[in-house]
């Protein structure tokens, strides 16, 4: 069985940062596994700028941010295993890894989970109606447009004004689509002020606060929703051919669900808690990586 000192699960901003710090702290035996075929986690599909002000002192795009981290990684001996799903982690400090043609067991001394988060899906909400095509999470829509060059839709309603919701509102506008509105349950937008100004105001996209979706309509493809004004209880039908949901992020810890807090397990980045900006996820991951690396050097 293969043996590594430090296994890091997830090669997004947090996993890459943790790996670099652990290496710098003196750990020379690091395996960094990621399920995707390309490293960077969600960053490669975040083609907008705004990353790295704290870490690099300049505004970078997601792909550029990834390049910086990968350039640094190239100078280390960290082994990066892409297309590799970590299937399970057990109490005896062993993980099962699966990639094309190879399922293997790896023993480790420390584990850093840097698996990011997943998006809450519409199914989690008590939204009634049909289940037609044309409903995407914001991340799904972002991947379709930015990485696959596919068109998710034309008349777009966005539910949720977190950063991802607002960024996708702008993205759809830039694609020449009509963003009908961004609906938000709260009193004001959920994300950062700078994203509101840059993504919503600058593109004249209406933000409808204290509103939510109650019912989905449409056979085949979505044709509209029944939305509710939460304060008055009034309802209105909003026609759309696409519903993009930005309902929030859930830290992805499925892999360690059955493990109790173990001294050999650390959480880095958004799987620990959801950070507003990449830099802060990365800097928390650096601390975690440094501590783990120093203990293994």
């Amino acid at each position, binding site marked *: 069985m293969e043996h590594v000192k430090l296994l890091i699960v997830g090669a997004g901003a947090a996993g890459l940062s943790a790996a670099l710090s652990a290496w710098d702290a003196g750990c020379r035996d690091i395996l960094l596994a990621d399920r995707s075929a390309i490293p960077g986690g969600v960053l490669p599909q975040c083609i907008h700028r705004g990353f790295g002000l704290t870490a690099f002192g300049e505004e970078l795009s997601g792909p550029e941010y990834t390049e910086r981290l990968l350039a640094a990684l190239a100078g280390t001996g960290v082994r990066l295993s892409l297309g590799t799903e970590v299937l399970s982690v057990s109490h005896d400090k062993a993980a099962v890894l*699966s*990639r094309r043609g190879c399922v293997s067991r790896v023993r480790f001394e420390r584990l850093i989970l840097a698996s990011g988060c997943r998006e809450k*899906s519409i199914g989690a909400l008590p939204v009634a109606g049909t289940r037609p*095509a044309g409903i995407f999470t914001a991340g799904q829509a972002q991947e379709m447009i930015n990485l696959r060059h596919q068109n998710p839709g*034309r008349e777009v309603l966005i539910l949720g004004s977190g950063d991802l919701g607002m960024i996708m509102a702008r993205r759809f506008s830039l694609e020449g689509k009509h963003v009908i509105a961004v609906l938000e349950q709260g009193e004001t937008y959920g994300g950062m002020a700078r994203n509101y100004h840059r993504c919503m105001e600058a593109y004249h996209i209406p933000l409808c606060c204290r509103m939510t979706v109650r*019912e989905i309509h449409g056979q085949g493809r979505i044709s509209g929703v029944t939305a509710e004004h939460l304060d008055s209880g009034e309802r209105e039908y909003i026609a759309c051919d696409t519903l993009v949901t930005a309902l929030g992020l859930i830290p992805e810890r*499925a892999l360690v*669900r059955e493990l109790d807090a173990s001294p050999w397990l650390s959480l880095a980045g958004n799987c620990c808690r959801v950070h507003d900006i990449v830099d802060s996820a990365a800097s928390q991951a650096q601390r975690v990586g440094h501590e783990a690396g120093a203990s293994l050097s």
Partner: protein
Amino acid sequence: MERFDAAVIGGGLLGCFAARELSRRKLDIALLEAREDVCTGISRANTAVVYPGYDHEPGTLKAEMTVRANAAFDRLCKELDVPFSRCGSLMLSFGPRADAVLRNKLQNGEANGVPGLRLLDAERVYAMEPGLAPGLRHALFSPTAGTVNPWQLGIAACENAVHNGVQLRLNTKVEALHRDAEGYLLETDRGSIRTRAVINCAGLAAHWVQELLFPPSVRIVPTAGDYLVLDKNSVGKPTHILEYEPEEKVKGLTVVPTVEGSLLLGPFERDNTLDYATTEGGLFWVREQASRLLPGLDLDGTIRSFAAVRPNPEQMDGRSIHSFCIEHPAERFWSLIGIKTPGLTCARELGQYVAAALARELHAEENKAFDPIRRAIPKAHVLSFDERRKLAAAEADYGEIICCCEDVTRAEVLEAIRRGACTVDGVKRRVGTGMGCCQGARCEQKIAALLSEALRMPESAVTKDGKGTERIYNGAC
């Protein structure tokens, strides 16, 4: 013109089993399905319970068939290689009316020959299901109740039917029927088919199909039901099927720990509707009932809601039909109209029933080559580490994970497509992709790409669930 001895109209659970059971005889059989895949109608949304048989009056066909079907279910699922969980059920009483219902069901069950039925006191029930709300009086424990995935069972029956020579004709809608001395002529949107005999299993359209040739005798009044699905990792899941028998004379909540590990809650029943759209009131009712019955159940684990539609058969004068409605309007024409609960439990028995009746009329010989065995798509996630390692080494695609929530590999997805999946949901129904906590957000893209590649169609033509549900916007709406 194509000629067959028998044509089964409708590729749902019942049609697939009718075709499979017919293929035990030396007959040329066609299975006709209007849509692009089998099990896309009633069969895809169901409470998924294999009933023990205490719900029906002694001496009725339903009672007799259900008890027999239940007893044979392990063997059937072994033959067809479909997961079946005989988890047992608890019918729960919190008051005197429900107590009386339980006693009545116990009596029925005993008269029907349901094995192992026991009326348990509250203490015993809480030991079995510690998460149940306080105030319980009794439960009717039925160890033989179980759960099966309805569409997996139907797809397995279809595969086995095809393996035994049945010709599956997809995208083939029967538009007109004619009868002459030779038999029946079916006009479909893909040309005409001659057949000596017909089995009509057209689900919600079964009465219309029969009326293409015969005067109306039964009508279908559909009812819908709203359900919620909780993720397999939800806290507070029960281990038995729970059937809450309320004090008011309404249908109570059913809770089913499915073979996939998720938890199914429902149904909230709505009368006289064909609407697959869930209702706010229904979803609210299910949530409220669930939190009352299982206070510790974490409803934040909800991952999906859906509606099921069932066909209730009625006489033309509005009287409801309680028995299975098996019609025989003419020689060599059989219809299963408005088969609802326990249709899933009895799917094979109903197929066997009409197949046997038809075989007698056709003087069909036994097909000695009939092979009842169907092998499921091998699932990586149920294997031991060593088995999985060897499989991935032998077949590289078994190492590549496509659906990370449910741990489904590329090899499984490709095999699902090879076996007939042609939509994202078709893959889901065969290998369970997209059924976990992210509901396909992370794998849908990859599955669409694999469908496009394997079926040599542009990705823009890949649909979620058949025509009109293209995943990529094409401006057609």
